[in-house]
């Protein structure tokens, strides 16, 4: 039976090119990139190639890219690293109420260490209001951390406007962007938008899990989380995860033109919205101008988990909210002010270049079936 995978914001299938590259780097070019001999040199050359590819997508220099173990480590490195580096300049940090747990949990730790963290609220569309950000930033603010695209709703945050606000307030703040959901899907211009730190992940773009990257703008000083050898400018020591890093590079290399794919996703998304809106009990939470790869909705009256398991029996894979929240009540939908019955029944569809219109048809049919056969939770 065919699998309908609509959980691409949780993770994606690894593309064949990336998988092939990982195997090659494990079995053929297996040297340690720090080894001086030829095998080490070849390995380092491949790691560098991957670094260059990621840098090229972001229009930055390859020295500004550090490989990490994934989005969580990139976010933690950025948040803690910036807070520690600038703690003498001020104690105020600004973030949003809808960040990924790897930012929010780090912020909670910093609060315990004496930092003041401001969690900006969002509107019904899930977006931060710039006036509130502008009011919050002052000369004591040392870090602003904001995601580019929300992982549960696809809401796009106005990251290109943040730098101006920081500058206008004459604040020393570094600007961190969690771009895990946006990378490879929409144009990101860290240089142009005055971003100092930007996190990306491999497994959201058909690369392997366990690897990600952090853009650190040239001249930006952050305190490392790890200590060890000379690798990666000592910001992230330890032997590089060569197979994963190179596979990520391949995944980036074979990324389709992002504008074309965006349009393809818009078509899919619009089609899904059109079919779903015909169903009486379905409410769509993602606003129309969200990133089209993500569609958050509720089949009101049915708990997320019940629906999710029911659909899984039909080999349709969706998720309740963020996979990282493991079934907890969504803080994102809560922040958007949605009523409890919507939050309890929220389902996230997330598409990839392999998603087809037929997949959506099948999902919609099965959702309809589910609503007719399952007992409503009330």
């Amino acid at each position, binding site marked *: 039976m065919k699998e309908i995978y609509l959980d691409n914001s949780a993770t994606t299938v690894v593309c064949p090119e990336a998988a092939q590259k990982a195997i090659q780097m494990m079995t053929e070019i297996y040297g340690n990139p720090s080894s*001086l*001999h030829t095998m080490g*040199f070849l390995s380092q050359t491949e790691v560098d190639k991957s670094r260059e590819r990621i840098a090229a997508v972001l229009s930055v220099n390859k020295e500004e890219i550090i490989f990490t173990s994934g989005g969580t480590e990139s976010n933690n490195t950025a948040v803690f690293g910036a807070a520690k580096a600038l703690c003498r300049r001020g104690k105020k940090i600004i973030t949003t109420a809808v960040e990924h747990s790897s930012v929010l949990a780090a912020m909670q730790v910093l609060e315990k260490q004496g930092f003041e963290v401001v969690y900006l609220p969002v509107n019904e569309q899930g977006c931060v209001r710039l006036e509130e950000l502008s009011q919050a930033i002052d000369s004591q603010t040392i870090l602003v951390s904001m995601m580019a695209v929300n992982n549960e709703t696809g809401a796009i945050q106005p990251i290109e406007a943040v730098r*101006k606000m920081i*500058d206008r307030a*004459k604040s020393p703040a570094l600007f961190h962007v969690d771009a895990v959901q946006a990378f490879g899907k929409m144009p990101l211009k860290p*240089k142009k938008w005055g971003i100092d730190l930007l996190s990306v992940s491999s497994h959201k773009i058909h690369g392997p899990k366990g690897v990600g990257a952090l853009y650190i703008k040239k001249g930006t000083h952050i305190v490392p989380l790890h200590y060890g050898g*000379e690798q990666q*400018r000592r910001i992230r020591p330890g032997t590089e995860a060569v197979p994963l890093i190179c596979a990520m590079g391949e995944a980036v290399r074979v990324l389709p033109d992002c504008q074309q794919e965006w349009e393809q996703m818009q078509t899919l998304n619009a089609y899904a919205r059109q079919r779903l809106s015909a169903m009486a009990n379905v409410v769509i939470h993602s606003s129309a101008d969200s990133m089209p790869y993500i569609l958050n909705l509720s089949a009101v009256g049915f708990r997320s988990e019940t629906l999710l398991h029911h659909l899984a029996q039909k080999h349709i894979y969706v998720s309740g909210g963020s996979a990282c929240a493991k079934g907890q009540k969504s803080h994102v939908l809560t922040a958007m002010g949605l009523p409890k019955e919507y939050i309890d029944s929220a389902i996230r569809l997330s598409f990839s270049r392999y998603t087809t219109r037929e997949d959506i048809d099948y999902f919609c049919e099965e959702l309809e079936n589910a609503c007719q056969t399952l007992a409503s939770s009330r």
Partner: protein
Amino acid sequence: MKEIILLKLGEIVLKGLNRKNFEDTLLRCLRRRLAVIGAFQVRAAQSTIYVEPLNDAIDMDETADCVSKIFGIAAYARACVAEKDLEQMKIAAADYLADTLDGVQTFKVEAKRSDKKFAYTSPEISAAMGEYLLEKFPHLTVNVHEPDVIVTVEVRDFGAYIRAGLERGAGGIPVGTGGKACVLISGGIDSPVAAYMMAKRGLELMAVHFASPPYTSERAEQKVVELLQRVAAYSGRLKMYTVPFTKIQEQIREKCKEEYFTIIMRRFMMEIAQQLAAAKGAQALITGESLGQVASQTIGAIACTDAVCRMPVFRPLLGMDKEEIIEISRRIDTFDISIQPYEDCCTVFTPRHPRTRPELAKVLAEESHLDSAVLIEEAVQNTVVRDIQKE
């Protein structure tokens, strides 16, 4: 809205009758370097060069970065072009400078009117523009003494140009106006800086690197390639000649006294470099020596080294401290590559106690134990060349 880049010429404007030559070389250089990015119209008028993209897809960030590294340009600015109509100029300024003005608290307007036929005077333009921007950006205030940003309006023959600020250019004089020279490059911090500095004075570059496998690795050579790629961002493309140096080093070590090793080695390097340089039309050598930095960089050692040279040797770092050199290497982005810890030809077989005051006669006596001509010829013949351009 059309965005262009305005370039202000550096010391070229001081050149008398040669000025045209310098300007033409600069224009050629600009056209060649910009061609990699896209199609541009590049023209000079009224001491300014106008770089105008010919299609919308051109990345102006990349363009600005590219021109910021071209010698002969004292300053540059991104500007928008507006029709010579005060209303249109005001609208264009508010639109084009929105991002900049959002990020500041204070500003002032400066107007320059070189087209005297334009109906308004400079003070009138400034006043009207200032008033309009204050209305459009209510958070702004005017500060004529220490503004966060200066909005400049230039009314010239071809149109009105509106910009915020002026960036410092690479300075110097255009590459190629001063002839060609050959840099000896090891992989350390100094030689790329020396190459950059001489390119800044108008020299076209070629580079010679000495490789001693297995004492040095392919990484050391790769490091030099990367260093030169960074230099090429300023100097334009160049050729790198890699000379096999193992045999010469082994012979010196075997047949000459240890304390003379470095000085003799450097004489060989100079000889080989000048042969390659002469064959490729270069008229001088460039080294990264800084007086007193190491034993081979004393007056006595330099005298012995230069005794083999038949062409001038340029040593732009001679009077600089290490800290000053490092500052430049950071600015031109070579520092992080230079500090990668691979053995290079200069660190192989370093004597424990090198001569700091070598006498030429003794050096020559030691050197006579070697079959120099044959060794040099063999090295020159087996030299490998590669093309280097910026990444």
